[in-house]
């Protein structure tokens, strides 16, 4: 069974541009979570989608947004990129909503903002 997949693996942008990151959950999983892992820091929760709806978001500005498609895949958009947005962005999926079920993580997208 395929795990969580993310694309692209690496993304290089310049300040002020927009970045789009993609995530495909494990088959049968309806919840998708996004995290930011900046260098030297732990994972910071960004967004949680389930059944196409945004269920919760972390303490990030509105220029971080996303959506979940009918096939449960998800996109994370970061507008007006800033240098400090450079980080590893991890996507996770779970079978049931919220913390009841285990989150399984993808390999991440390394975003570099120049």
């Amino acid at each position, binding site marked *: 069974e395929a795990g969580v997949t993310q694309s692209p693996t690496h993304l290089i942008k310049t300040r002020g541009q927009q970045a789009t990151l993609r995530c495909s959950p494990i088959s049968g999983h309806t919840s998708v979570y996004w*995290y930011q892992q900046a260098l030297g820091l732990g994972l*910071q929760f960004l967004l949680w989608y389930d059944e196409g709806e945004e269920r*919760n978001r972390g303490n990030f500005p509105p220029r971080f947004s996303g959506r979940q498609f009918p096939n449960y895949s998800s996109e994370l958009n970061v507008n007006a990129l800033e240098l400090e947005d450079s980080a590893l962005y991890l996507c996770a999926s779970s079978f049931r909503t919220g*913390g*009841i079920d*285990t*989150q399984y*993580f993808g*390999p*991440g997208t390394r975003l570099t903002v120049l």
Partner: protein
Amino acid sequence: AQKVTQAQTEISVVEKEDVTLDCVYETRDTTYYLFWYKQPPSGELVFLIRRNSFDEQNEISGRYSWNFQKSTSSFNFTITASQVVDSAVYFCALILNFNKFYFGSGTKLNVKP
């Protein structure tokens, strides 16, 4: 306020030594979930264990064991007879309200041959 504290930033041990990774969490909720994940150099987090707040039983899985103590709000992870392949960053996580997700800053474990 920090919800999950992993005070050990980095630990180095020699192969076959036992090592304990500490995790202290903070919550007033009575229902919550705790997790440990391993992040090897490849970057992909690997699930290790999940515990709910009503299950204080310690667990052993091979060389891994977990000690959950609500009295001290701790969920520590011990690797017995460590191996080089155990080298990774280990994260402790706390789920509250079924919709709030907190990760510690991680402990980097270096196991030397």
